[in-house]
């Protein structure tokens, strides 16, 4: 019987439950120096002087400034499309460009001294004009990089603007949607430590999603060969896209080399809120046109993306937004364009969904507005426009591999009891009380492994007949130690508990890319499977040699973890016996295989139904139900998949009705602690009604797509649409996200 598809409890749980997680901050590192960063309290200013004498008068305190750091500013990689001349110094030298930018480094014997010394570093700032709003930034009146001459860091225009795009449409509606800035908020703040060994090699312990990628990045920044660096990512307390190599990590490694001593740094939450990149920040306008039956004929999406003070990955993410702009609908004409601009804010980067939620949020609002204008139910307009043959190439060039969009919608509606909900809504509307019901739909498709990456897997049979699986993928909560072991167990027939998954150490795993873009299982999992298959082939050869048979006649019986001659089970060897004998003969090393698997993107999809109660007198919004159908192909471990969807949905709901990282007009963060930022708690959210649906992809041997971000992508528009659905009788057609009490109340007042 196959182990795949079973709800297997996680192997990694016990250590976390016992408080034995190996987070970087828990590492004991003898005689390590502590690093404390001095960060700018102003958004845009010229640094005219730094007086560190009082700090350096403290015992064993040294202060370094930008002038001391001989590392070249970081230039975004060419695929990000960032305009030449934009680069980020590790420590600001002459100009600071956002609140939170590092202006000096305090090195001390302990953290308490570092915190005290930081207060004694006096920096003189000569204020420069500040630009926070993207529309203001587009005017290029205040420039972040005057030598570049514009704040626009990247543009993507798919075609000439077609003035006749909506010709022939009976109905045309337009709207705006700001996918507001969010703080990723992994519960573990970042932490980094580094030590130079006697051989000159550096070991860096990083709280990261991508240890191998970080090693490459560190090597490039510091002018070293990758082999001179070992990156260890121990247990990592969440990442959500934001935890890849950041300036602080580079500085910690650089400092360990500069001082020849172990060095460590752990950020505070307040520091993390302005030091870790933010997500989203796209300001979109859309127009959609259809015939009088609601058959969509044309769609235009224009986005201005807030890349923050040092445009990098955040400047690239609109590419994914445009690519996915048509969503699940067959739209014959699409015009999608974007401009990314620099502002005096924390740089933006990937955050759960990374460019795709924005696409879904826009098209799903557009379709709801169109349904209202045409006068048909939101479910019906979706049905009339679904893509229903696969593979399907969209107007923007995405090739959807497989899907069943109507099936997902039907399942979600049935599970939610859509007709009954509409009846209850009508009843409440007729009664006219203050608590009105809103029902919101979202049907989505997203892209995982978006840029078609490669992942590494290696399987090795151990002396005792167990197995080690080394993966270049990484788990910062995703459960690879269980899921990936299941994949190897399925192929090898070796029980799960005898398979150890090794990850997160560049010395222990030959290569890898890490975990982001929901790509782990579809490339890392498939690589693990293929490496397992290779090991079985090698094992058959050895067994054949021992039994003087042909390898073609040897079969693996997974139920008994045994290889034997086909048709005569008595003639064979169990893995333990094979390993023992191969060890004795010096052939154990043959039972080891590596595989690299490169795959094209895949396209998970689904349908969500949200039910909200809106108090139309106070504006208070309560999400009372959320039904989520998320289809990511075959599930290896449905238990883990459930968890991915639950967490994803919570984040999507967070964007819809709770969270916003806000700045005032001076570029001062207004939500830089957990006391100010509305991170939803258990008391703010309902239980989730996840409904499983499985449509395997033909793209890989496991049939798997990615599921890490689906819940987030599907949830936000469903909840946003639900709030607007509740408000429809009051003439409200737009509420900014988060659609919280304040924004809903304002919208209601404006509509009066």
């Amino acid at each position, binding site marked *: 019987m196959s182990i795949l598809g079973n709800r297997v409890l996680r192997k990694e749980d016990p250590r976390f*439950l016992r408080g034995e997680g190996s987070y970087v901050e828990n590492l004991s590192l003898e005689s390590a120096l502590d690093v404390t960063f001095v960060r700018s309290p102003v958004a845009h200013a010229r640094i005219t002087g730094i007086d560190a004498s009082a700090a350096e008068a403290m015992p064993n305190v040294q202060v370094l400034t930008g002038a001391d750091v001989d590392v070249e500013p970081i230039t975004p990689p060419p695929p990000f499309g960032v305009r030449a001349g934009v680069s980020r110094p590790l420590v600001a030298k002459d100009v600071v460009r956002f609140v939170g930018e590092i202006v000096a480094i305090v090195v001390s014997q302990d953290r308490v001294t570092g915190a005290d010394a930081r207060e004694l570093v006096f920096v003189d700032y000569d204020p420069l004009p500040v630009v926070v709003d993207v529309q203001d930034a587009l005017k290029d009146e205040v420039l972040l990089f005057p030598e570049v001459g514009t704040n626009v860091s990247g543009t993507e225009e798919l075609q000439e603007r077609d003035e006749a795009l909506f010709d022939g449409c009976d109905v045309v509606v337009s709207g705006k949607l700001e996918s507001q800035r969010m703080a990723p908020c992994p519960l573990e*703040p970042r932490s980094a430590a580094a030590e130079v060994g006697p051989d000159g090699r550096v070991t860096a312990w990083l709280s990261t999603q991508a240890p191998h990628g970080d090693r490459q990045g560190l090597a490039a920044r510091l002018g070293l060969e990758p082999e001179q660096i070992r990156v260890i990512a121990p247990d990592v*307390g969440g990442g959500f896209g934001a935890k890849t190599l950041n300036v602080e990590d580079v500085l910690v490694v650089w400092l360990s080399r500069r001082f020849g001593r172990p060095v460590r740094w752990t950020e505070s939450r307040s520091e993390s809120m302005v030091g870790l990149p933010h997500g989203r920040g796209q300001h979109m306008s859309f127009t959609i046109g259809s015939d009088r039956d609601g058959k969509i004929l044309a769609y235009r999406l224009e986005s201005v993306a807030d890349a923050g003070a040092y445009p990098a990955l955040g400047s690239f993410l609109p590419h994914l937004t445009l690519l996915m702009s048509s969503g699940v609908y067959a739209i014959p004409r699409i015009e999608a364009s974007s401009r990314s601009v620099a502002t005096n804010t924390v740089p933006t980067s990937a955050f759960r969904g990374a460019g795709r939620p924005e696409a879904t949020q826009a098209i799903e609002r557009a379709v709801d507005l169109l349904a209202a204008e045409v006068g048909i139910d939101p479910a019906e307009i979706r049905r009339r426009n679904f893509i229903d043959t696969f593979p399907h190439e969209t107007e923007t060039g995405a090739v959807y591999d497989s899907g069943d969009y109507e099936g997902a919608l039907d399942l979600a509606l049935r599970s939610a009891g859509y007709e009954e909900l509409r009846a209850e809504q009508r009843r409440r509307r007729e009664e006219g009380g203050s608590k009105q019901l809103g029902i919101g739909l979202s049907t989505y498709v997203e892209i995982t492994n978006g840029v078609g990456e490669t992942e590494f897997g290696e399987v090795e049979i151990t002396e005792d007949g167990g197995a080690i699986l080394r993966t270049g993928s990484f788990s910062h909560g995703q459960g690879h130690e269980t899921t990936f072991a299941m994949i190897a167990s399925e192929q090898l027939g070796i029980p799960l508990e005898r398979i150890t998954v090794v990850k997160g150490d560049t010395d222990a795993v030959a290569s890898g890319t890490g975990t982001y873009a929901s790509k782990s299982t579809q490339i890392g999992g498939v690589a693990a499977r293929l490496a397992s298959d290779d090991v079985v082939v090698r094992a058959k050869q050895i067994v054949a040699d021992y039994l003087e048979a042909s390898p073609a006649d040897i079969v693996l019986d997974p139920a008994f973890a045994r290889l034997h001659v086909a048709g005569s089970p008595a003639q064979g060897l169990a893995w333990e016996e094979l390993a023992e004998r191969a060890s004795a003969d010096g052939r154990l090393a043959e039972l080891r295989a590596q595989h690299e698997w490169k795959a094209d993107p895949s396209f998970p999809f689904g349908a969500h139904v949200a039910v909200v109660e809106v108090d139309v007198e106070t504006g208070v919004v309560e999400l009372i139900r959320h039904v989520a159908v998320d289809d990511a192909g075959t599930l290896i471990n449905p238990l883990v998949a459930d968890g991915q969807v*639950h967490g994803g949905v*919570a984040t999507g709901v967070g964007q819809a009705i709770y969270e916003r990282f806000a700045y005032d007009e001076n570029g001062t963060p207004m939500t830089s602690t957990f006391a100010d930022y509305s991170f939803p708690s*258990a008391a703010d959210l309902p239980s989730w009604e996840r409904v499983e649906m499985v449509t395997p992809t033909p793209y890989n041997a496991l049939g798997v797509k990615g599921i890490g971000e689906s819940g987030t992508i599907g949830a936000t528009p469903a909840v946003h649409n639900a709030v607007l659905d509740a408000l429809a009788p009051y003439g409200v057609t737009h509420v900014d996200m988060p659609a919280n009490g304040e924004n809903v109340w304002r919208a209601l007042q404006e509509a009066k």
Partner: protein
Amino acid sequence: MRVALTVNGERREADLEPRELLVYFLRNHLGLKGTNVGCDTSSCGACTVLLDGVSVKSCTVLAVQADGREVTTIEGLAEGDELHPIQRAFHEQHALQCGYCTPGFVLASVSLLRETPDPSEEEIRAALDGNLCRCTGYHNIIRAVQAAARAGA
């Protein structure tokens, strides 16, 4: 200042600066690294421990305030190899992912079920309002507390 307290059943004494927070005393002096720090505003609850059996955020308690009292951290919950029923319920219900918030949630749940042995979903959600998790969406944490309550934890 001199403090003497019981931590996970063991008597501990130390000389401390008055400003030392309980969480840093536990982590740095006693080496109990299971108590995590997730924020600096007493918002996230990752550092939750039991003080005389009641959950507190150890970032909001001075170590000297624990003088003469009894502290239980996540390391003190299991009986040898045997996980506490709430730890077991978290495992069985997949109520943890990255694990960073987990010790705090487990101890807050222990405290909740001591006070309210059979809480409703709403009571559980209200009781855990002071603990934040970014991975699980709370769904399975609620299921775990319910399962532990059913098992009489």
